[in-house]
């Protein structure tokens, strides 16, 4: 059995002042297995990965690689051993071609040998069974393709242990299938994979073994086929918690939002409505135009034609400012770039939209401001040592709560949640679901965009399915299923290709 062990961590411990990020972690990775690390944010996954990459030097413990013991890794040494990590934030040079990215760091002589670079890239892609032109610029690729380039880069370096940190977060289900095929292939070639994900369905699909981390410690390592999701979640959070979706009571026949024939840069002839107290989901593949639609409603991007009605009155929204004035709130998917000001305190982030209102005659109303901040921190249970702590120091879940608080300060009646729980741990997810339920119970309305099928199906009263910028279908939340949604999408695709053929 020991021959089969690629990597063995023994008693790995890493302490930071005030917190033990990794506590006595022992873990074996077999050759050619997919080993999933699962745990809430802050469970110690990142620190563990960083110890493997050499970015973190453990205080105690050893890293045993193919029988050789190390007290710690170095960034260079870890690569030489064959450890490659694909982070959530991809590290590619967008201005360079795919081939150049794959061969980046391999300097041979003074001049760039484009031909051999392309050859290397072609070979790797063939191995992976995908078709991409290596001459293309990385910046022109979709996120999914960029991720494949990262993986290709790792393979070309002779990877033995590939770490994938939440690789599916930006992917559509089709792209996920594709990724899993590649993982399968790598496994057969004897490559070990450490897989990190919050998505339960995937974890079970892809894993051979699962290690649950909690508060920096290994709770248990299990064979994937011997465990059920409920018990896994229980192990993760150590409390009875399933991904349940809270009950809701409010019902109304009045429309909060109605859209007629709305056309924009990426959307065509959209018709939809959202009632008061309703959560309406927008389903569809990545690039179907869901975020673009939301941005248009909120006023980030401008519409070309069509009408938007809020509470029955036609409105003309030309900027986020006017969107807010018409009581629309937006929780953007790109939290770090669009949702928060990372280097600013929680207090300023929550109140940024209403500073003017808090400041009669132009002078800051600091007292009023701190009242508002206190109110939302306690209302949304934002965990922070002080209200002026920089938002970048908060966990993803707490950051998201800050964004939601900001949208609530403007008395929003329609709140658009774009991927509200992406990269957020199970516990915080539940809190955000409960919060959404509370909002609609108060008579507010929610437009929910989510690539997490379970979330979309569980939260929505109705779902509009988008494909290619158009609404391809509408399903009642109770009847909706992943299969039905996929059917609508593929029907729409078929229709479109037929139309195209007819046009030809």
């Amino acid at each position, binding site marked *: 059995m020991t021959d089969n062990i690629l990597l063995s961590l023994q008693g790995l411990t890493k302490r*930071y*002042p*005030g*917190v033990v990020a990794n506590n006595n972690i022992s873990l074996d990775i077999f050759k050619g297995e997919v080993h999933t690390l699962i745990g809430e944010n*802050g469970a110690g996954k990142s620190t563990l990965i960083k110890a493997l990459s050499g970015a973190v030097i453990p205080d105690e413990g050893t890293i045993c690689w193919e029988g050789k013991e190390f007290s710690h890794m170095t960034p260079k040494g870890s690569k030489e051993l064959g450890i490659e990590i694909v982070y959530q934030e991809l590290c590619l040079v967008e201005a360079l071609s795919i081939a150049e990215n794959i061969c980046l760091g391999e300097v041979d002589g003074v001049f760039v040998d484009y031909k051999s670079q392309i050859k290397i890239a072609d070979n790797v892609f063939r191995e992976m069974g995908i078709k991409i032109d290596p001459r293309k610029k990385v910046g022109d690729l979709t996120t999914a393709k960029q991720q494949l380039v990262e993986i290709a880069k790792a393979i070309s370096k002779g990877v033995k242990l590939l770490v994938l940190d939440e690789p599916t977060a930006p992917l559509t289900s089709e792209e996920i299938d594709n990724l899993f095929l590649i993982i399968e292939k790598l496994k057969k070639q004897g490559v070990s994979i450490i897989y990190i994900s919050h998505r339960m369905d995937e974890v079970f699909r892809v894993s051979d073994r699962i290690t649950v981390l909690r508060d920096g410690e290994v709770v248990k390592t299990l064979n994937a086929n011997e465990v059920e999701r409920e018990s896994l979640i229980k192990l993760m959070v150590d409390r009875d918690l399933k991904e349940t979706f809270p009950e809701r009571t409010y019902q109304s026949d009045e429309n909060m939002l109605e859209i007629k024939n709305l056309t924009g840069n990426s959307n065509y002839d959209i018709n939809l409505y959202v009632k008061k107290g309703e959560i309406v989901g927008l389903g569809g593949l990545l690039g179907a135009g869901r975020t673009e639609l939301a941005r248009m409603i*909120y006023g*980030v991007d401008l519409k070309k034609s069509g009408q938007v009605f809020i509470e029955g009155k036609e409105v003309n929204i030309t*900027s*986020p*400012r006017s*969107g*807010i*004035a018409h009581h629309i709130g*937006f929780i*953007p998917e790109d939290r770090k*770039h*669009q*949702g*928060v*000001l*990372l*280097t*600013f305190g929680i207090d*300023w982030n929550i109140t*940024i*939209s209403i*500073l*003017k209102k*808090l*400041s009669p005659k*132009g*002078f*800051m109303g600091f007292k009023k401001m701190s009242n508002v901040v206190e109110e939302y921190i306690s209302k949304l249970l934002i*965990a*922070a*040592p*002080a209200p002026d*702590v*920089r938002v*970048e*120091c*908060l*966990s993803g879940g707490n950051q998201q709560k800050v964004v939601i608080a*900001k949208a609530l300060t*403007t008395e929003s009646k329609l709140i658009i949640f774009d991927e509200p729980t992406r990269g957020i741990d199970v516990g915080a997810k539940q809190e955000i679901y409960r919060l959404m339920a509370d909002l609609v119970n108060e008579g507010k309305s929610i437009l929910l965009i989510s690539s997490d099928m379970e979330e979309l199906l569980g939260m929505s009263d109705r779902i509009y399915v988008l494909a290619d910028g158009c609404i391809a279908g509408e399903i009642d939340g109770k009847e909706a299923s992943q299969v039905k949604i996929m059917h609508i999408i593929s029907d729409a695709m078929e229709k479109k290709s037929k139309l195209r053929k007819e046009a030809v």
Partner: protein
Amino acid sequence: MVVKKIINKFYLPIILVLAIIFFAITTDAFFSVHNLTNIFVQNSYLVVATMGIAIVMIAGGADLSVSWQMGLVSVICGMLLQNNAIPVPLIIFIGILLGGSLGLFNGLITIKLKVHPMVATLATMTIFQGIAYVLCGGSTFFNFPDSFKAIGQKYLFGWLPMSVIIMFVMYAIAYVILKKMYFGRHIYSLGGNEEAARMAGLNTKFIRVASFVLSGVFIAIAAMVLTARTGTASPGIASDAVFICISACVLGGISFNGGEGNITNMFISVMLLGIISNGMQLMGLSIYSQYIMKGTILALAIAFDNYQKKSHQIELANQAKTAR
């Protein structure tokens, strides 16, 4: 730990005091009322201009055109001052208006061409320079009425220079705008993350332009103080102001990405650079060795600032983790 905190927070005033002590010991002339007053007077216009640049930089912009904005204001005021029929207060008012307009121009170029302010002001810098030279036709203006020269040369009660009063007033105005008014917070927010600020409902274009207009007003006042003090008006009157102002902003902890910066630290930075110039001059060192010294201090300050930010962040992160 406490000592470290004090040093972290007050490193600029500490360096300032050390510099004063150093020059007081090494030179005879430095530590006299006359010389110290002189330092204030000589740097007052730079403080005012730096406050203006700081507003633009905190908003995430940059202004390379400051020297030639000052030159242009100086030349136009100088020309107007040749005509005795125009009352001096009106000329000052026109000067301020002109500064605001030049800022407006910078701001509009930035938002209309959708370029980084650094690029926009690189273009306008050249334009302002050209206009200033065309207007003055190569000549320098002087013979200003005393009432104008007063803003740069007059001493109230015989000891309190007018220009220093203007400097403190402008500093106070900048402080109030940035720290006590919501508009200042909008400026910080724009610099912190323009995209997020827009998404939060801020009128980012307006704020960008307004930051330039405000800055233009400060720069115009600086230009007039300088013109009045030297008694001459010419395009190149403040040609090295841009380096000093931006250096002072950087020394004062402003980030080129915007979103942060403490106006008091920038004030201190200008004074520090001024004291170093003055002290080294008194030590008999050439202006070129002063450059070496200033550059070195700047580099060290940036390094220290980076180090400090990092340790501060780690501390905060730990606080947050313990809280969770």
